[in-house]
């Protein structure tokens, strides 16, 4: 059993930024992460991070706010978006002072490039390894801060005293065994859930654990039905080719060599919003103008020098996983599940509805992305709201004291349920269920959705949850470094979160942002300009709704 004032679960950009801030406020901080911090998926972000610095052209936070609101298809909360866009530049400068290596303009300022639907060149970048650079900079600062990190501890459940969150239970992967982690404030920063889809840009670790922990503890999840599909992912393993490739001037072509995007988005072309580009690609593929289930991302006209300087990482990925050198030939790409807009419902300081529980980063929903996130906005979200949440948690602890009582039986309960999982010897292997889930989600809760498909998907998810409850077989019976066990637990999280996602999607009978219903092709502000809340109700999903915060920008038609 360990104890800290503030415990952060997850050590990606959001988690580390929160931990650093809480420790600056004098809190005793512990970080629990199933991966070593630098292994977090934030490191995979290539393209960049948005902030209205105005280094590459006229820009200001108001413009950033407007384009984010528009990009969100008006589902984003405008007060939260304004906070992010106004505070963003300060956070970028701070990262730069910490040592982040941002690419530069001629006059030595941070360079910025255009990203889809941004309206101005606003995306700061470090070549095409932005996430990697930021993740390592924050880890450097975490080491400097002296915060305790429990590496390769897998958080299992939130512990509450009936009213407030008082800590978590965690499985120590290296040594085996359940650990109680007591805290006056718990910050969830566990990232996304893209792994429930076949064809995803997400890492193996993106399984929605934190969201499902919160959901089971009774905390509502917001806008779970909104899953963004990235237009340019490799066919073999879903690895993403950055939007920066189009930002630098890359073309999308169909099998006839045509730059088809202008048929769908006459002004923005390849730089239209992600949901628009993904749907256009899927339409081209469905109508027979694809190449082996893909379209072509053509960079050849950019030349070797530009590609090597600005898109070196993308070139390497294309060569490693598609066997294609983009200097010589176009890369076959297709849409893949990428970013989950929904998550644990929070306010602009990371508070959830449960006292003592906070959330930040991709596992949270503030909401700044609404129905569709703009490229470059989620890295910004991790640092802005990571910082705010760390500050709020530390200050709340100082003001309100240590909080509730951590029941000693919590660890025992968790230990017993893991014991049951390990003891099971006959039944299905988890990977069978995982594959069926991934196929069902991609086929029926993907880019284009219908009532019929979604209902079928819901039935499938319910069936899989039942099969999971009956017990899956973990073949590794040891306690030390049991990754077989961890994967089985992750499957449980994914199944629960898939249920929340699909249930929300069935109910939302409109098309908005990334949620595109063929049977309800129009946006319906009258009925659906509201957030979905998914509650835990005896294992099932119960939906409720809440109005969207609109301050300045009245909903308008979204066209590019």
């Amino acid at each position, binding site marked *: 059993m360990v104890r800290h004032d503030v415990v952060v679960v997850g050590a990606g950009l959001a988690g580390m930024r929160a931990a650093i801030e809480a420790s600056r406020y004098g809190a005793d901080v512990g970080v629990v992460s199933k*991966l*070593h911090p*630098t*292994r*977090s*998926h934030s*490191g*995979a972000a290539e393209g960049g991070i948005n902030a209205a*610095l105005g280094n590459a052209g006229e820009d200001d936070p108001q413009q950033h706010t407007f384009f984010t609101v528009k990009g969100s298809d008006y589902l984003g909360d405008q007060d939260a978006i304004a906070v992010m866009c106004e505070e963003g530049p300060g956070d*970028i*400068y701070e990262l*730069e*002072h*910490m*040592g982040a*290596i*941002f*690419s*530069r303009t001629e*006059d*030595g*300022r941070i360079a910025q490039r255009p990203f889809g639907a941004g309206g101005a060149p606003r995306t700061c970048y*470090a*070549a095409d*390894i932005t996430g*990697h*650079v930021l993740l*390592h900079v924050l880890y*450097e*600062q975490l*080491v*400097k801060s002296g915060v305790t990190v429990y590496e390769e501890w897998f958080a299992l459940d939130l512990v509450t005293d009936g009213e407030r969150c008082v800590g978590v239970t965690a499985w120590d992967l*290296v040594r085996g065994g359940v650990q109680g982690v007591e805290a006056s404030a718990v910050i969830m920063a566990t990232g996304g859930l893209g792994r429930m889809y076949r064809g995803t840009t997400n*890492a*193996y*670790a993106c399984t929605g654990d934190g969201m499902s922990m919160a959901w089971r503890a009774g905390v509502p999840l917001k806008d779970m039905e909104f899953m963004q599909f990235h237009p340019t992912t490799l066919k*073999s*393993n879903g*690895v*993403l080719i950055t939007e920066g490739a189009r930002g630098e001037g890359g073309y999308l072509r169909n099998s006839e060599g045509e730059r088809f995007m202008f048929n769908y988005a006459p002004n923005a072309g390849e730089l239209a919003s992600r949901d628009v580009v993904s749907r256009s690609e899927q339409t081209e593929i469905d109508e027979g103008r694809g190449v082996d289930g893909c379209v072509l991302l053509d960079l050849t006209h950019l030349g070797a020098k530009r590609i090597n300087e600005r898109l070196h990482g993308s070139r*390497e*990925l294309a060569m*490693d*996983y*598609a*066997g294609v050198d983009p200097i010589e030939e176009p890369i076959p790409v297709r849409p893949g599940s990428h970013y989950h807009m929904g998550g644990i419902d929070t306010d602009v300081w990371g508070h959830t509805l449960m006292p003592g529980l906070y959330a930040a980063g991709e596992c949270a929903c503030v909401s700044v992305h609404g129905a569709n996130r703009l490229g470059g906005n989620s890295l910004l979200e991790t640092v802005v709201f990571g910082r705010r949440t760390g500050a709020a948690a530390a200050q709340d602890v100082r003001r309100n004291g240590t909080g509730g009582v951590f029941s000693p039986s919590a660890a025992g309960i968790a230990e017993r349920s893991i014991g049951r999982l390990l003891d099971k010897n006959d039944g299905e*292997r988890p*990977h069978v269920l995982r594959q069926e889930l991934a196929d069902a989600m991609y086929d029926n809760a993907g880019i284009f959705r219908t009532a019929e498909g979604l209902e079928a998907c819901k039935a499938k998810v319910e069936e899989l949850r039942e099969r999971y409850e009956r017990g899956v*077989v*973990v*073949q*590794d*019976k*040891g*306690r*030390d*470094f*049991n*990754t*077989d066990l961890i994967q089985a637990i992750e499957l449980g999280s994914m199944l629960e979160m898939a249920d929340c996602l699909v249930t929300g999607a069935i109910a939302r009978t409109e098309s908005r942002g990334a949620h595109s219903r063929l049977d309800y092709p129009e946006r319906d502000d009258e009925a659906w300009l509201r957030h979905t809340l998914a509650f835990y109700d005896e294992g099932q999903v119960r939906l409720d709704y809440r109005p969207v915060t609109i301050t300045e920008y009245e909903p308008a038609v979204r066209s590019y």
Partner: protein
Amino acid sequence: MQVTLKIERYNPESDESRQETFTVDVVEEATLLDVLDVIKDEVDGSLTYRKSCRMAVCGSCGMRMDGAAVLACKTPMRPVVEAGEVPVISPMGNLPVLKDLVVDMEPFWAKFRAIKPYLDDGGEEPPVKEWRIQQEELDRVMTEALCIQCGCCVSECNSMEADPDFLGPAALAKAARFVNDVRDRGGKSRLEIYNGPHGVWDCTRCYFCNQRCPKGVHPRDAIAKVGAAIYQEGMHSDGGARHAKVFVKSTHQTGYLLETHLVPETVGAVNAIKEIPFALRLARAGKVPNPLKPHKAKKLDEVRKLNKLIESQEQATLEAANAGPTRPPADPAQAKESE
């Protein structure tokens, strides 16, 4: 396609080691990691390895294939299969094995922490906005910034095999990333860490790290850059740098490292006695001939050429280091702008 692997297994709970052969069917584009996944899912769920990103950026999946460190997710299997090979997969070297292909990374991170792995701002107030820096100045640390801390270099490091306390290629590449960052104010105090015992001068220049790094970080070149900075600061009269000079001399003369000469010339005859075990360990690892029985390398010409090359490389890095880094000016106009 069908892939066969021989995997070195270790079960910590029974303390059993064994080699096991697996054959599975995988898709044509499968990487080594994909093959392990198929084995774990379909054959033996207890097979243990680390993974996360599967795109060569998280640094989780370092392991050895036929004795050389690789990232499993960056290793396509088709060429291996086409060559008819049955590779042996084993955990990385120079780090304790926890289970199967998983090693204990703590010694690795302890060295990371030891090199002051963060920008030293010298307690100065930063500018209101960003530091004004030219792209070329940043390019100087961009290569080292590619490091994903996977440990592949450390796995193969010659010197670390003999001296487990050697800071090693990954930590020293990280060091170079700060030494040449124009924003860093660490100066001499930073360099002292790298100039000390187990620092840059422990490197035997075997170049295995450059060869094995999956991200093109070139840790050995980074070490040379740190060495150059130490020279530039006039700190080279210390023990470590002297060690390096003698090292070059010694290999130049004989084509092999003569630890018997090297140690006394660096630290003096009395202290040398303490260092003998180090030389013996090197000898045992087959990296140098038995220090008590010096002999000549066969291709002395080649060794001399190599030394020339190293010298000219170091000269070049030294010149580069002399040309910069300069501190970025805190632009007064910029400060005004945002007041």
